[in-house]
């Protein structure tokens, strides 16, 4: 009985978190009311499911897949074909369950292709996923009846009978369908992490050899996890088909697979909620950042690079590390350092960004003249003074940033030792 009692406060916290999550999903379109934001929110929901399903492989199973878009993409295709069958009166299912059609087909393809892929782990696994992804993409160009060739396959989601007046005509109705799927899928994927298979999957990630000696077939563990991940990926794909009403070959492409990997990693593969952050960032980057600047992929690449080098646990691990500091009441000691880091980083990035923008301008838009607008300033891309000014700003920022980084690192180190001491003290007190 003692063990049951001990878990109680934890469960209360869990109720609060899940209610808050549901609340956010419900309220978000009421807060962000523009057309653009509704579209973005819908895409975020889809991306959350896709990235979490990807992290089932990467973060939980240690499987670095370069071809996850195969399962989201084929789910999309199957769903849009099913949608067209519904429109044509050949299939009698409600539009609301089409994402499940996507999910089941994602799962089916995972059963088929995963059989080959999950025979190996580590680098061979990664290589095989890459091969499978290339294979499927090549097939998308060959079989245009199914993949729709260059134009893709389009559909109309206002099909079948309206259910309580829900036609999925307005974007907001699609959003709520996606939100409902997002909530259920996130809950199910979280639940998976708390099951025997979910935990053994972690063990396979940590030390596959030892798992073989405690009675488990690691290939089987990877295969089942791969199939489950394929199912959720397919659901994300099916929702995508309904959301965009068009599916083109790029949904199974390497770019999409790479984006899942990149943003899952950025968000943080070591914590369950990390990919959720990653998915939100993915949509912000794809929709907003790409509008803002032509150099957005360069910025994304740089962020990824620095993240891998300095914070391999992603944003989620940064949050958790600071939460730990906050829990011991030491965040007060360090917040000025954060302020310093933030300001100096801003100065440095402003300088660097201005130069990057000027280079892009010279390469792509030089016909439009030499002036570049950057953060309210007007720069001359061919003017020496602009370049000197930017370099000066960047170098000043860099110098100051390095100073505040050193200051921060000492403070951070001190706080960590204090926390360690505190933990020791509490241990001995017990």
């Amino acid at each position, binding site marked *: 009985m003692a*063990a049951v009692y001990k*878990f109680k406060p934890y469960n209360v916290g869990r109720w609060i978190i899940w209610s808050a999550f549901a609340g956010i999903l419900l309220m978000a379109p009421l807060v962000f009311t523009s057309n653009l934001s509704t579209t973005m929110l819908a895409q975020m929901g889809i991306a959350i499911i896709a990235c979490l399903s990807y992290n089932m492989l990467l973060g939980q199973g240690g499987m670095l897949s370069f071809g996850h878009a195969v399962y989201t993409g084929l789910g999309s295709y199957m769903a849009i074909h099913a949608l067209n069958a519904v429109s044509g009166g050949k299939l009698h299912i409600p539009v609301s369950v089409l994402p499940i059609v996507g999910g089941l087909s994602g799962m089916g393809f995972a059963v088929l292709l995963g059989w080959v892929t999950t025979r190996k782990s580590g680098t061979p696994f990664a290589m095989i996923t890459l091969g499978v992804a290339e294979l499927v993409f090549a097939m998308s160009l060959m079989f245009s009846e199914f993949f729709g060739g260059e134009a893709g396959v389009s559909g109309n989601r206002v099909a079948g009978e309206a259910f309580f007046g829900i036609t999925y005509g307005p974007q907001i109705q699609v959003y709520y369908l996606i939100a409902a799927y997002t909530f259920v899928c996130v809950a199910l994927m979280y*639940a*998976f992490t*708390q*099951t*025997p*298979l*979910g*935990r*053994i999957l*972690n*063990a396979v*990630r*940590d*030390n596959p*050899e*030892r*798992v*073989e*000696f*405690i*009675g*488990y*077939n690691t290939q*089987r*563990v990877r295969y*089942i996890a791969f199939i*489950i991940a394929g199912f959720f990926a397919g659901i994300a794909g099916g929702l995508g088909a309904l959301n965009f009403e068009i599916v083109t070959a790029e949904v199974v492409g390497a770019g999409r697979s790479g984006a899942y990997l990149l943003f899952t990693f950025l968000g943080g593969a070591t914590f369950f909620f990390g990919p959720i952050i990653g998915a939100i960032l993915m949509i912000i980057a794809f929709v907003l950042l790409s509008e803002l600047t032509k150099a957005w992929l360069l910025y994304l690449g740089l962020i990824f690079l620095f993240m891998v080098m300095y914070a391999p646990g992603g944003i989620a691990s940064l949050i958790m590390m600071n939460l730990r500091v906050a829990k011991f009441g030491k965040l007060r000691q360090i917040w000025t350092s954060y302020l310093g880091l933030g300001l100096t980083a801003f100065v440095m990035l402003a300088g660097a960004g201005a130069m990057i923008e000027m280079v892009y301008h010279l390469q792509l838009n030089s016909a439009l003249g030499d002036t570049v607008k950057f953060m309210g300033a007007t720069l001359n891309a061919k003017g020496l003074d602009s370049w000197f000014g930017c370099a000066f700003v960047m170098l000043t920022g860099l110098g100051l940033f390095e100073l505040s980084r050193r200051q921060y690192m000492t403070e951070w180190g001190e706080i960590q030792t204090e926390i360690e001491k505190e933990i020791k003290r509490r*241990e001995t007190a017990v």
Partner: protein
Amino acid sequence: MSTTYALELKDVRKNFGKTEIIRGVNLAVEPGERVAVIGPNGAGKSTLFNLISGRFGPTSGDILLNGQRIQHKTPYEINRMGLARSFQITNIFPKLSVFENLRCAVLWSLGYKYTFFKFLSGLKDANERADQLLEMIRLDKKRDILAMNLTYAEQRALEIGVTIAGGADVILLDEPTAGMSKSETSRFIHLIKEVTVGKTLLTVEHDMGVVFGLADKIAVVVYGEVIAFDTPEAVRANAKVQEAYLGSSVADSQAGGH
């Protein structure tokens, strides 16, 4: 008495390329016996364990576990038939807590297999067994610490815990006390004795004091062959063993006094 041995090796051979590492090993271990496998470095002790536990297949010969052939089975199949092993180099799940390490190791034996429609927190038997194991290996205070943050001796204890967790009745321990101090070793041997009561135990060990204190029988492996397999007294008196391997070690351990 029953005629089936807990573990039986019949003319087991293993080649790596052209090199013959195990050159016809015969060994028959009665249920409940504690056997220490000794021998100089490179004699093939670890290879022997790897063959028995299914890490490699033997080139020829038979290996029988409770009378059933296991020489062509995978490690997980052999484990399910009741044989568990530990490793010379600590081999645990570093990013899982101590408790999770043990719980993972009990899941199969309790029949949970690849279940994903039950919550771990609801598996009363698995949780109780894992907590019980925590106490047995004296790590109950480290329950929620990640395995990678344990001290070396604690990791060795966890290694043993993971090995015995599934309730296998034949246990192979590959140098369980490697790298431990004298005092840690004696405490650890006590622990091993305690947690393997009633089980068949094979252990590779270098410390002669430990060997003579722990084992019912000693198997001496030299150049891929078992040159003697007998009680400690008989092995100590065996001229072939003294000549080939023990010599000064025996004299030392006798001089050191028990």
